[in-house]
């Protein structure tokens, strides 16, 4: 008898736990919709659904959560002004979980089950490559917000981050003209650094630079003492740094300890932005360079409002950075294209997007109809002691995107090889 009673208690407890669990799941799922809809009914006739697909868990969440935040902010701003085509935008948020097959699976779910008008998402090239066939097969539309290695142009993707001729190639030219001819290439051992360095090596040959060393370290490598010795031996003018993630922290801390400052050696990084500086420590990075299209300090009226709103919404200790801004741009560009087309239909939106211009926080951007990349201004910045960048140089006008580097004769062998 006693035994039976206990098992009933247990069952009851189990049910209670299950119920609480389910309730918790339910509320967290509803949250984004209820916060953004602001009173309107969920009937699909009044809203336009869009997908947001970033890694909200796992290793890549470090970077991608901020981009999601910027995209949500853009959607709220547009909704507050009346939405698009008189309808409110309703975001459907999915977690790519830093796992590339999950990105493909969630993209398929967003397109075929939720029937979203477009998707904003991705960070790593691997996640983009995983989603690409899904978007091409179902004729969906993806807005990808991160600088990448180029050599791609899918009809179903809009690239709002920089391609190589808007970041790496002009940076190398600037370094050759201002800092010296001898280059040392240091990168993490995976696709992006190796592709980027292949391009840089061709460019150095063509523009009179000299390669004095090239090193790749495994992702997560933490001891750079030997590599610093090698750099000292090779005596380069410039270290072009394509290290990714935590390795940057170890490299720059140990470089400083070895007695090498930015006065002795120029380094230029393409994966270190405002967010990364906080984790490395501004005192360690002061004086080192980076190449991007946008900095939190970029001086435009649009950027002032953007930074103010972002900090007001997510906290004063948060910083904005290039990919965050590119994600924000993507939402506004899509909304503008939809307004212009008068419909959310993919073919019409793509047609309307051609040549579309917008005053982004980084300055004027324009969609190039042929490649579906953006015209973007290139900026080289120097890290200041407060952890922000000071712009040393910019390209003046926005640079036309050239993902296959067709405009550069020295790059002819590259695209043939791919």
């Amino acid at each position: 008898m006693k035994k039976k009673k206990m098992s009933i208690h247990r069952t009851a407890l189990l049910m209670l736990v299950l119920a609480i669990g389910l309730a918790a799941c339910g509320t967290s799922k509803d949250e984004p919709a209820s916060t953004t809809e602001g009173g309107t009914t969920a009937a699909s006739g009044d809203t336009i659904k869009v997908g947001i697909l970033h890694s909200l868990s796992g290793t890549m969440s470090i970077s991608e959560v901020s981009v999601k935040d910027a995209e949500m902010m853009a959607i709220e701003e547009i909704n507050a002004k009346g939405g698009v085509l008189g309808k409110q935008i309703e975001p459907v948020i999915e977690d790519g979980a830093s796992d590339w097959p999950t990105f493909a699976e969630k993209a398929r779910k967003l397109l075929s089950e939720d029937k979203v008008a477009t998707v904003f998402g991705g960070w790593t090239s691997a996640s983009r490559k995983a989603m690409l066939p899904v978007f091409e097969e179902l004729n969906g539309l993806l807005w990808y917000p991160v600088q990448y290695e180029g050599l791609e142009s899918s009809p179903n993707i809009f690239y709002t981050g920089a391609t190589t001729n808007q970041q790496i190639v002009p940076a190398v030219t600037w370094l050759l003209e201002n800092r010296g001819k001898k280059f040392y290439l240091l990168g993490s051992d995976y696709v992006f650094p190796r592709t980027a360095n292949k391009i840089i090596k061709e460019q150095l040959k063509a523009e009179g630079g000299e390669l004095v060393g090239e090193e790749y370290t495994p992702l997560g490598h933490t001891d750079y003492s030997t590599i610093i010795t090698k750099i000292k031996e090779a005596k380069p003018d410039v270290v072009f740094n394509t290290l990714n993630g935590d390795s940057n922290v170890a490299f720059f801390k140990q470089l400083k300890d070895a007695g090498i400052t930015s006065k002795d050696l120029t380094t230029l990084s393409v994966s270190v932005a405002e967010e990364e500086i906080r984790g490395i420590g501004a005192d360690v990075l002061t004086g080192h360079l980076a190449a991007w299209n946008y900095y939190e300090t970029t001086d435009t009226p649009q950027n002032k409002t953007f930074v103010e709103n972002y900090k007001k919404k997510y906290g004063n200790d948060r910083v904005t950075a290039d990919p965050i801004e590119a994600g924000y741009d993507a939402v506004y560009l899509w909304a503008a294209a939809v307004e212009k087309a008068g419909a959310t239909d993919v073919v019409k939106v793509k047609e309307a997007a051609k040549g579309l211009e917008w005053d982004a926080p980084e300055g004027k951007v324009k969609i190039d109809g042929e490649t579906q990349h953006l015209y973007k201004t290139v900026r080289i910045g120097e890290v200041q002691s407060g952890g922000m960048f000071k712009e040393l140089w910019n390209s003046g006008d926005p640079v036309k995107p050239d993902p296959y580097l067709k405009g550069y004769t020295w790059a002819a062998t590259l695209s043939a090889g791919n």
Partner: protein
Amino acid sequence: MAIYVTQLFNGLSVSSILLLIALGLAITFGLMNVINMAHGELIMIGAYATYVTQNMFKSALPASMFDYYYILAIPVSFAIAFLFGWLLELSLIRHLYGRPLDSLLATWGVGLALQQLARSIFGAPNVGVTSPSWLDGGLTIMEGVVLPYKRLFIIGLVIVCLLAMYFYIYRSRAGRNMRAVMQNRDMAACLGISTRRVDAVTFAIGSGIAGIAGCALTLIGPIGPSLGTYYIVDAFMVVVLGGVGKLVGTLFGALGIGMTNTLFEYWTNASLGKVLVFVCIVAFLQWRPKGFVAMRTRSLD
């Protein structure tokens, strides 16, 4: 010449870091035979303890005192990791003695849980720890050879830890009890030693030393939730290569891996260097399966 001296020092420095991260494991894995996959996360706890100490100094004390935070951070890291180790032993490890595969899975799970805990408390991005100014710069011993104070400090810290552990294990009463329990549990229990207490303290000390390692790593590396995963494989490698169960073996293991790794990395590159080191370790273990220093005891068989 300058290059050889620098590389020799780099080898020593890498060895000292390896030794520091492996010392705690030499106790929990080497002496207690617990395959502790959460060792890396105990290192991470030490690193975050240093971060918190730094922040407390920044907010509560005048700026002139800031440089001394690091001296306090070492015992604080030890204490907090010690506490976590104690709780872990009490709640989980205790029930898994003699079941190495179960303890492997359980501690791996604990490791994941601790990583997520760190992510929830401190956020996913790395946090910055400013090293004290008295560790900035380096000692110039000859033209072109600079020995960074931070690396010298870590070498010193390892020597202190090693000596302290040696005296504790081989020269103190508590250490004698510990060795007795590890070598023959039943006999030790018969002679009136509380084996449960000894187990708990031993595991906690191993964890505490991992905490000190975490504190030292804030000087030269990243501080984030996944910090532990970068070091866990190396730590196991050092203990296995050195010979499970002997402190002096761990010392040789760390020196062996650190020196060869630096050498190979200099000759080839970082990725290939690591591969060559692994090849050497596998070959060496084929030749001497018990590592550098084999423990001669019946209880281990």
